[in-house]
């Protein structure tokens, strides 16, 4: 009976795993919508060691993405959050910061919804002052430099103006 064959088990388990991986991990690399940067993606392509890029590191280091998503879906709940996110918007995102939880609001286009640098600085140092009832912790332990970088990153998160073409198309 095949039930006593260790080889069958190991080969079968590996083969089925590979089939599913091809379908859900490898195949998406052949989909143009997932592999072409959009115009909004270019706005998130921060130069290395720019204030925005450093701010992004502060965002990652302090786990901002545990409470804030960065994606807008074509559903009613996201109607007030700005344009619907496209796969190519994330082209330059390393690591991706889509997030999975909204203990705080979505930040995909926060630079458009709240462009004020002063507001962001105040909010990060004492969230309850600018947003009464907020459950966000204070980030007053960050240095001035880190705070400024983080704010530079946040206000850079905005969509490209309508009709803007991604770089790859301009080049054609």
């Amino acid at each position: 009976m095949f039930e006593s064959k260790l080889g069958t088990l190991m080969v079968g388990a590996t083969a089925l795993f590979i089939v599913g991986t091809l379908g859900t991990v490898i195949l998406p690399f052949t989909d143009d919508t997932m592999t072409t940067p959009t115009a909004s993606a270019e706005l998130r392509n921060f130069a290395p060691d720019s204030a925005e890029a450093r701010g992004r590191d502060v965002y990652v280091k302090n786990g901002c993405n545990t409470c804030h998503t960065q994606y807008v879906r074509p559903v009613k709940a996201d109607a007030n959050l700005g344009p619907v996110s496209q796969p190519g918007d994330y082209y330059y995102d390393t690591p991706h910061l889509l997030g999975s939880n909204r203990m705080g609001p979505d930040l995909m286009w926060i630079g458009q919804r709240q462009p004020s640098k002063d507001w962001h600085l105040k909010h990060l140092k004492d969230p309850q002052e600018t947003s009464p009832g907020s459950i966000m912790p204070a980030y007053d332990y960050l240095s001035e430099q880190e705070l400024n970088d983080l704010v530079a990153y946040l206000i850079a998160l905005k969509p490209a103006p309508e009709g803007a073409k991604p770089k790859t198309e301009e080049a054609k």
Partner: protein
Amino acid sequence: MFSRAEDSAARGFMFSSIVWLLIAMSCGLVIAAKQMAPDVFAHVPWLTYGRIRQVHVNGVLFAWMSMAYVGALYYIIPRLTRVKLYSEKLAQVTLWLWNLLIVLAVVTLLAGMTTGVEYAELIWPLDIMVAVIVLLVGFNCIKTVAARKEKQLYVSIWYFIGSLIWLPLVYIVGNIPSEWIGGIQQANMNWFYGHNAIGLWFTTVGVGMIYYLLPKLTNAPLYSHRLSMIGFWAIATLYVWNGPHHLVNGPIPLWLMKAGIIPSLMLIIPVWSVVANVFGTIKGHWHKVSQSIGLKFLVTGTIFYLITCLQGPFQSLMGPSSVLKFTVWVPAHAHMPLFGGFSPVIFALVYYMLEKSNGRIYSRGAQEAHYYFSVIGFLLFGFSMWIAGVLQGFSWVEGNPFMESITAMKSMMIIRSVGGTMMLIGQIFFAWNVWKTVRLPKVKAADRDLDSTVTSA
């Protein structure tokens, strides 16, 4: 330090995992407190919410559950194959390495050294360490099975070997550095990893443990060996496809969402095979459930596993997802298979191991307290978060200001913390009872049980 006594590594893994369980669950409680009062431990970088949460998640997944699972593999595989573990010494090495790994993980995460990728937060040197340890564990277990004296491979072995093949592959795909693959592809791979860690490691080893314990605790043969094999192949075929359902309505093509949703609906097949087997085996032995704490945990775990797998496909559909996604409903769902489903299976195995080696458990009362605090605590925890999630989701649908969704779930968050505290109290009874039992004078030395109830089924 490197004992060669039989089961020494298995016991080491179990005891270590219990210590990590208390630490990781305490972090969970800190998170719950911070969600009600953000000033708790504020102003200190290494105690900030985002970092503690990573320690909690990694702690329960990779320290508590995974270490206990390796303990289970080292304990059960020699018994089902009728040989000693291939190398007890290598097993001891993996035990110390794994504990070292977790210490390094806690320190780096609290220091803000993180990849930022959910469930894959560990920095790359630690990723390599994980991969090496897991491969060593797999090597040791597969070598043991290859040298077996029992010709038949009981179904638990199938699940264990499958898991040991899948875990390293899943881990590697999920932890490819973002410098190589970032953006939406990485997000997609992130969920491939997140979902398959639960599907092809936490579920499959847990099911293997259920199939080992069930005939032992009921003293009856397994209801259907064939059904359990159907379940195995169904899980191997279907689970790996589920990742994209985490990005439903999100920035991925529609075909990819469908490729994730359809197999997740079909997962009812492997779940049903487990449930049918558990209930079929216990049929005629239900009176034993009230007497055996192990069976109580086992049956409870199976029921929560079933509910998880009914709830999961529901929330992966586009309609329900458009309301429930990003709410606290989702973390409550994530807790169900781990704390409600498979942690009880580990509890059952730990009590079983100790009863075999020590002849008895120190306190039956503490076992009951462990059970009721865990189960009632989880029910409070789960239902408060599911209700809060619905309130939160519909608040967004109505287009209210964001803060309304936070205010709406305030009272539910208090109930959640009460539930979470009870869950932790239950584990304190557990740890205390294990500690006391280990220190009891042994009444029975016979440890290795090579009876055939399990394998003859």
